[in-house]
């Protein structure tokens, strides 16, 4: 009687069947198979050195054995499927053995076979890391190229070189900008901004290219230095320095120095104003009004009226001129968004 049988359930207890089964249970494995399995079990207990295998680090070892290879030395069995025959470390610690025993490492490293879950991710490690490296490199190169093209686009929109610069009316005497007709503003605003940016980068005044009619103070300098780019640049720089010095002066002093009547001094002062105000905005008669210099609030109010009356282009130009003349003046909130 089988002692493990559950005696509590009589339906599961059949002594007659058990006896019959044991009578017929005489099949046994062949002796050859027994000998083979016992030999296999015996061979499994032998150390690897006796089986003709080079001793190495057990890749599945834990604890001290797994720490035998100290970084940065990799384990050879990480790179070769024949880890059983390879040494555990490829480092100084194995240096003597390296000279006395054959090497089993090679380049490129052999990929371990598929099917074993331990090696699957290692098989994918090299392709995935390569793909990631390529993607990063391509992305970096594209970004650099994009930035370079953007810089070239800004510098490519620069105005004509200074060597080719010719005033539109070289022989015309200095006139207030309201009386000097300017060429139609056909260039878009973005191009103008790009020009300003490029010229500011070159150290030139931003409004230099806008004043097609040279001022009286500018013309002699250009004549002295000729039409060369260096002479023009020097003249522009000189003019800019003068304008800056004038802007730094208190407005009251300039107001007191300016005559009230429309005389030659007034015309000279107007020409001075046109030097201060960019010539490109000179088509607006209000810009020549000296009261704008003394009363920026009134100028702001006029700009606001122009904007509210629908003359937005004029308002934009006036505001640009205002910013140029009064760069430190805080703009009201309703005009701050106008560009």
């Amino acid at each position, binding site marked *: 009687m*089988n*002692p*493990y*049988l*559950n005696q509590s*359930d009589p*339906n*599961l207890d*059949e002594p*007659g*069947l*058990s006896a*019959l*089964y*044991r*009578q*017929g*249970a005489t*099949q*046994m*494995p*062949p002796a050859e*198979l*027994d000998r*083979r*399995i*016992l030999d*296999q*079990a*015996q061979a*499994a*207990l032998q150390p690897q050195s006796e089986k003709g295998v080079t001793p190495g680090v057990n890749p599945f070892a834990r604890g001290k054995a797994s720490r035998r290879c100290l970084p940065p030395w990799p384990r050879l069995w990480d790179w070769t499927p024949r880890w059983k025959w390879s040494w555990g470390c490829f480092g100084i610690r194995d240096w003597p053995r390296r000279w006395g025993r054959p090497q089993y490492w090679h380049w490129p490293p052999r990929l371990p076979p598929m099917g074993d879950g331990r090696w699957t991710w290692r098989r994918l490690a090299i392709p995935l890391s390569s793909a990631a490296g390529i993607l990063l490199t391509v992305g970096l190169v594209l970004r650099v190229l994009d930035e370079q093209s953007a810089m070239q686009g800004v510098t490519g929109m620069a105005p004509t070189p200074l060597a080719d610069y010719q005033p539109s009316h070289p022989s015309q005497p200095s006139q207030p900008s309201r009386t000097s007709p300017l060429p139609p503003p056909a260039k878009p605003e973005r191009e103008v901004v790009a020009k300003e940016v490029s010229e500011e980068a070159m150290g030139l005044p931003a409004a230099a290219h806008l004043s097609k009619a040279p001022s009286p103070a500018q013309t002699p300098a250009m004549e002295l230095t000729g039409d060369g780019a260096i002479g023009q640049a020097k003249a522009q720089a000189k003019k800019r320095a003068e304008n800056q010095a004038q802007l730094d002066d208190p407005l009251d002093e300039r107001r007191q120095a300016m005559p009230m009547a429309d005389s030659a001094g007034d015309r000279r002062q107007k020409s001075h104003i046109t030097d201060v105000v960019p010539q490109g905005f000179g088509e607006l008669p209000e810009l020549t009004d000296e009261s704008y210099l003394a009363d920026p609030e009134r100028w702001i109010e006029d700009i606001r009226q122009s904007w509210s009356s629908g003359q937005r282009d004029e308002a934009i130009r006036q505001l640009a001129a205002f910013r140029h003349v009064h760069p430190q003046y805080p703009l009201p909130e309703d005009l701050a968004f106008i560009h």
Partner: protein
Amino acid sequence: MPEPSDEHLMLGYRDGDAEAFATLYGRHRGPLYRYLLHGCGNSAIAEELFQDVWTNLIRVRGTYRVEASFKTWLYRLAHNRLVDHYRRGQVPWVDDQDLEVVPDPAPSQDQLANDADCVLRLQLALSRLPAVQREAFVLREEAGMSLEAIGACAGVGRETIKSRLRYALKTLRAALEDCL
């Protein structure tokens, strides 16, 4: 001096005692072989599976822990190998859904006349049982395992094994009624 248990022998073999394996092998070679033979129905295949099971045991000896009976662990390896054999051969392993299927009827009178021996009739009736019922019966008879241990081997619960065993015994009783 009492004989060492299977677990002690397996631990001894894990630690390098080859004699312990020989003793362990001698204890379980017959029952395990017959379990596999009943499972596949072919002696050649049974020998191959038998060797595979012991080879697997030798290979994973380092991971053996005394968490359950050695017998349960051994027959669990054998069960997995048997199921793997059926999967590779595209032979369906009968699952629990076949429990309600009524097995083949008792052999005809002509067959009974030819198989006069009750042992042969038992072998014939056993071979016609569903695989899961036959496995439960053979594990109980050969290994003497409890219902819980059989369930642990087959990966099912105790009540499932109990149901399978009840169906198997009912069929075998009906087939060998005149022998019992």
